[in-house]
C-alpha cells in the first residue's frame, strides 16, 4: 500500500517498529552475544552487553566435549534425506493432481492434509514398537523415514499449489509444435516448476531440522540430531550459560539464514495455500 504520509508519521512508525523488532529478536541476539563470553562474564552482575573480552573458546569446548559435528551431521542427514526422498515421491503425485485432475483430486488432497493433523503422541507407542522390531530405533534411516512421512502432506500441497499456477495452455502450445511428452516435461514444465520445487525443499528442510517430538523420542546417542543435543543441556552441571549459547548459536545459525530466504514460501506452505 503506497499511501502518502508525512515524514513525521513515517519516523514514528520506524522508531516503533524497530523497537518492537529488536525486542522480539533480543533473545537470539543475547544468545549470540553470550556465546562469545567466558562463563564468568556470562553470569556477571550487572549483565555485560558489548564490552567484554570476546572469546571463541566456548565453540571449541562444545565441539571437544560433546562431538558437536556428529549431531550436526545427523541433523543434515535427517533433514536433507527426508526432504529429498519426500520430493521424489511428491513431485509425480502433485504433478498428476495439478495437470490431470479428476473428481477425487480434491478429496485426496484433503485426506493427505488430514494425516498431518494426526497428533504424534497418539501413535508414539506403535511407532516405537515398530522401530524396535525393525531395528530402526536410534538410526538415521528411521528418522529419515518418519520425517519424510510427517512432511509429505506439506510437500505435496506446496508443490500442488505451485504446479497449478503453471498455465495448461503452454502445454497445448508445446504439443502443437510437435513436442513429445519427454520434451514437454524436460524443456517446458521443468524450468517453470523449479522455483516452486526449490522453495518447497527449503521450507521442508527447515521444518525437519527443527522437529522436536520424534527426534527426542526415537533417538539416543547414536542418531540424535541437534534438537536432541541441545535438550541434553537441560540438566546442567556447573557453569554453562556461555556453552549453552555457543551450542545454540551453532544449531540455529544455518536455519536462520535459510529461513530468511523462505519467508514468502512459509506463508504458502504452512497455510496449505489458503493464504498467499
Amino acid at each position, binding site marked *: 500500500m503506497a499511501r502518502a504520509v508525512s515524514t513525521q508519521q513515517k519516523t514514528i512508525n520506524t522508531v516503533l517498529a524497530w523497537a518492537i523488532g529488536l525486542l522480539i529478536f533480543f533473545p537470539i541476539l543475547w544468545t549470540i552475544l553470550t556465546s562469545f563470553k567466558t562463563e564468568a562474564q556470562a553470569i556477571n552482575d550487572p549483565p555485560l552487553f558489548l564490552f567484554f573480552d570476546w572469546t571463541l573458546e566456548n565453540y571449541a569446548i562444545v565441539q571437544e566435549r560433546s562431538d558437536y559435528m556428529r549431531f550436526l551431521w545427523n541433523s543434515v542427514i535427517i533433514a536433507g534425506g527426508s526432504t529429498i526422498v519426500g520430493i521424489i515421491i511428491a513431485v509425480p503425485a502433485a504433478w498428476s493432481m495439478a495437470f490431470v485432475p479428476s473428481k477425487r483430486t*480434491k478429496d485426496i488432497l484433503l485426506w493427505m492434509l488430514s494425516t498431518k493433523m494426526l497428533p504424534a503422541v497418539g501413535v508414539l507407542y506403535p511407532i516405537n514398537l515398530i522401530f524396535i522390531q525393525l531395528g530402526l530405533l536410534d538410526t538415521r534411516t528411521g528418522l529419515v523415514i518418519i520425517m519424510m512421512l510427517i512432511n*509429505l502432506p506439506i510437500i505435496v500441497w506446496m508443490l500442488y499449489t505451485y504446479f497449478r499456477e503453471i498455465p495448461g495452455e503452454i502445454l497445448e502450445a508445446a504439443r502443437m509444435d510437435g513436442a513429445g511428452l519427454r520434451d514437454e516435461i524436460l524443456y517446458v514444465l521443468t524450468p517453470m516448476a523449479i522455483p516452486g520445487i526449490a522453495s518447497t525443499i527449503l521450507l521442508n528442510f527447515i521444518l525437519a531440522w527443527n522437529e522436536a517430538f520424534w527426534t527426542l523420542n526415537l533417538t539416543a546417542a547414536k542418531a540424535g540430531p541437534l534438537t536432541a543435543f541441545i535438550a541434553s543441556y537441560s540438566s546442567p552441571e556447573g557453569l554453562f550459560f556461555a556453552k549453552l549459547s555457543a551450542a545454540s548459536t551453532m544449531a540455529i545459525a544455518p536455519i536462520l539464514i535459510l529461513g530468511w530466504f523462505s519467508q514468502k514460501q512459509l506463508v504458502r506452505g504452512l497455510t496449505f495455500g489458503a493464504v498467499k
Partner: protein
Amino acid sequence: MATQHSRSAARVMMAPAVILLLGWMLIPLTMTLWFSFRRFLPLRGGDLGWIGLENYVRFVTSSSFWPAVQTTLVLVGGVLLITVVLGVLLAMLLDQPMWGQGVVRILIIAPFFVMPTVSALVWKNMFMDPVNGLFAHLWQAFGAEPIVWLSDASLFSIVLIVSWQWLPFATLILLTAIQSLDSEQLEAAEMDGAPPLSRFGFIILPHLSRAITIVILIQTIFLLSIFAEIFVTTGGAFGTRTLTYMIFQRVLESQNVGLGSAGGVYAIILANIVAIFLMRIVGRNLDA
C-alpha cells in the same frame, strides 16, 4: 483433454504417496486402537488381555485428567490470545510506510526458525533463571524480589516462551492478508471521515477474519501437541502437564500402554474436531 491413458498414468504417479500415507496413518492408528482396549504393561506382565472400555474410563477419571485439560486449555488459549492480538497489531504496524521495513520483518520472523529445544532452554536459563537470568537482574534493578519463573509461574512462563515462537507465524500470515487489502477502500473511508477505530473495526478486521481463523486453527493443531518446550523446562511438573504430556508419561514413563493409548485416541479425536473446520476452509479455497 485428459485421455484414458493419461488418467491411468496419473494414478500410477500418485500411488507411492497415497500408499505411504495410508500405511503411515492406518498401521499405527490401528495398533493404538487395539492397545487401548487391552491391559498392556510391557514391563509388568505384558499384554494381559481385553478389558473393553476400562482404559477410556480410567483415563478420564484419573485425578490428573481434569488438571491436564485445564493446563491444555490455558496454554492453547493463552498463546492464541497473545499471538493473534499482537499479531494483528504488528501486522498493521509493519504495513505502514517506514525505513528499513525488510530488516524489521527479518527481526520479527526470526524466532520461528529457532528450534523448540533451543528457545525453551535459552528462555529457561538466560532469562528465567532466578539467580543469573536477565529477568532476575531486571527485577533486582527495580528493587523487587526475583521470581522463580518455572516453578512459581510455570504455566505462564511456558505460554510466554511458546507465544514468542508463534508470534512470527501469526504476524507473517496476517501481514500477507493485510497487504491484499484494497487500499482505495480505506482511503475512501478515510475521506468520508471514518475515524481510525471504525476503519479498523469495519474494514480491516472483517478483511482479516479469514486469515485470523486460519491462524487460530493451524496454531491450535500445533499447540495441542506442544512437547519439547515442556520436556526441557519443567518436565510436566508444577502444573504444566498438558494432555499430550500426560499421554507421553503414561506410555513411556509409566509404561502403561493401554491407558496411554486410550488417551491417544482422545487426543486424535480432539485434533480431528479442530481439523474438520480447517479442512473446510482449505477445501473451499481449492474450488476457487
